[in-house]
């Protein structure tokens, strides 16, 4: 019914790209300010910072009496802190980067060898509604928050290694502070988004007969056609991973976000370890999801932008899917009117 990609879909994709670009560049903005913000120079004269001097003093081994009744209030130096630091710097950071790098590399290699999966594209194209407005909104709500959190989180983990050498420490101080605030602020919203996402999508993501044979056939990537319903087994696995990793990240995130609520050091350390591992895994899997949803499989993205997929796309990837009639009134008919 529409000859080329509709104008509105194109606009949507550009909006998405713009959004991603902005989220990526936003953390870098402070560097511009750092160059002429005067208070940053105070970092160079660390000796004058009374707080730093105080801690320098504590580090020398000075002990004292504490009237504070909080957990570990009387413990001045705790080895667990150092252990956590060791894990973070020596295990999580390097192996995390190897994993993410490896995933990116494999995707690039796969794309180079196999190229995008294409469906037969007939003219005129018959369109089917795959995702309702609400389903799309919830997906992108989660996705936007995921990327804000992933980027700020990665800055907090790798900023020291990557950004300081690149831009220097002045700007990083601002970036790190801004990232921390953003991460803490958007985290709880992500939990809400995750909740909405799981409720909305759970129904079609339970295991159904035929899913295993889809997996055995490698999801159709091994040459043979693999039959699937509205969601294939790969998408279902991704859904449950999102739920699992999301839950771990959410709970550990809450503990870290509200660290002032009397959690002891070990709890906080454990929360952080889990948070870091789950986040790295989450990001790595998301690369695959993004690849398959965009350039990896032609015609998939428009399902999540306009809501509609081509009939031939559905036949190839989701032949057992019965488009849901009850979804139609909510979104109206095919968006023909706008495609002029």
């Amino acid at each position, binding site marked *: 019914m529409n000859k080329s990609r509709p104008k509105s879909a194109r606009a949507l994709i550009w909006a998405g790209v713009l959004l991603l670009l902005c989220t990526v560049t936003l953390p870098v903005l402070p560097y511009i300010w750092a160059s002429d913000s*005067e208070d940053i120079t105070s970092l160079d004269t660390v000796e004058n910072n009374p707080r730093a001097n105080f801690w320098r003093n504590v580090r020398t081994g000075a002990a004292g009496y504490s009237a504070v009744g909080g957990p570990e209030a009387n413990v001045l130096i705790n080895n667990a802190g150092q252990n956590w630091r060791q894990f973070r710097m020596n295990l999580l950071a390097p192996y995390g980067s190897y994993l993410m790098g490896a995933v990116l590399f494999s995707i690039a290699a796969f794309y180079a060898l196999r190229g995008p999966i294409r469906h037969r594209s007939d003219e005129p194209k018959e369109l089917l509604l795959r995702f309702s407005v609400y389903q799309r909104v919830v997906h992108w709500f989660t996705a936007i928050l995921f990327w804000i959190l992933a980027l700020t989180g990665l800055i907090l983990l790798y900023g020291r290694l990557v950004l300081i050498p690149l831009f220097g420490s002045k700007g990083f101080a601002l970036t790190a502070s801004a990232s921390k605030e953003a991460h803490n602020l958007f985290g709880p919203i992500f939990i809400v988004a995750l909740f909405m996402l799981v409720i909305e999508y759970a129904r079609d993501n339970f295991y159904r007969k035929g899913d295993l044979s889809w997996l055995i056939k490698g999801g159709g990537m091994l040459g043979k056609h693999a039959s699937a319903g509205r969601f294939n087994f790969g998408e279902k696995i991704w859904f449950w991973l999102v739920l699992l990793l999301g839950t771990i990240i959410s709970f550990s995130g809450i503990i870290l976000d509200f660290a002032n609520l009397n959690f002891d050091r070990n709890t906080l350390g454990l929360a952080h370890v889990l948070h870091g591992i789950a986040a790295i895994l989450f990001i790595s899997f998301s690369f695959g999801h993004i690849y398959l949803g965009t350039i990896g499989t032609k015609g998939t993205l428009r399902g999540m932008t306009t809501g509609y997929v081509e009939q031939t796309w559905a036949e190839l990837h989701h032949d057992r899917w019965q488009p849901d009639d009850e979804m139609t009134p909510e979104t109206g008919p095919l968006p023909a009117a706008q495609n002029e």
Partner: protein
Amino acid sequence: MSDFILGPFWNFAVIVFTAGVVGRIAMILMCGLSKDLAAARGSSVTGAVGTVARRFFPRKETVKSNRFHIIAGYMFHIGLLALLFFAAPHVQFLKNHLLGFGWPAMPHWAFILSAEIAFAGLILLWLRRVMHPVTRLLTRLDDHLAAWLTFFAMVTGCLALFESFAGLRVLHILGVELLMIYFPFSNLMHAFTFFLSRGTTGARAGRHGVKA
């Protein structure tokens, strides 16, 4: 650059905002309106006041089909208003630079909660805007700019939360300045003109004896 943003540019933004808003409203009123000569069936004043007040709430008949929109709309507007008028730095600012008197600011946890509600509302509304066929058809560049500038002002405000770095605070001020400058030229004006539009509809309906 900081000096420029905090000094002359701030003054410029305030002037554009104030003059722009006043000018826009004056321009609307100057369009004229012919007097209603038909015999009244009710009071236009009661009608105007009533409609201005009643349209803060959706009609119960429309709640079901617009549930998502209504919830997200309330989240954003209530969250934003709370941030705007009850965030501690804002109360302080209004007291010191504008009004001369202040009022109790909200506690930190309430600030965070308001910010989260407002952000969730804004993002959800914007996503609905680009996803729903109706809003996609209606939306213009203006709507995106308004949403994005608001987001930018809000997000920089939250990054500058503890005012740990002057640079972040300056960034927030810049965001607010851009928003203020853009405000009178955009449909952000609805923050002021909704009194006019609701009022005039209510007045006419009131005269006709209709509870609009």
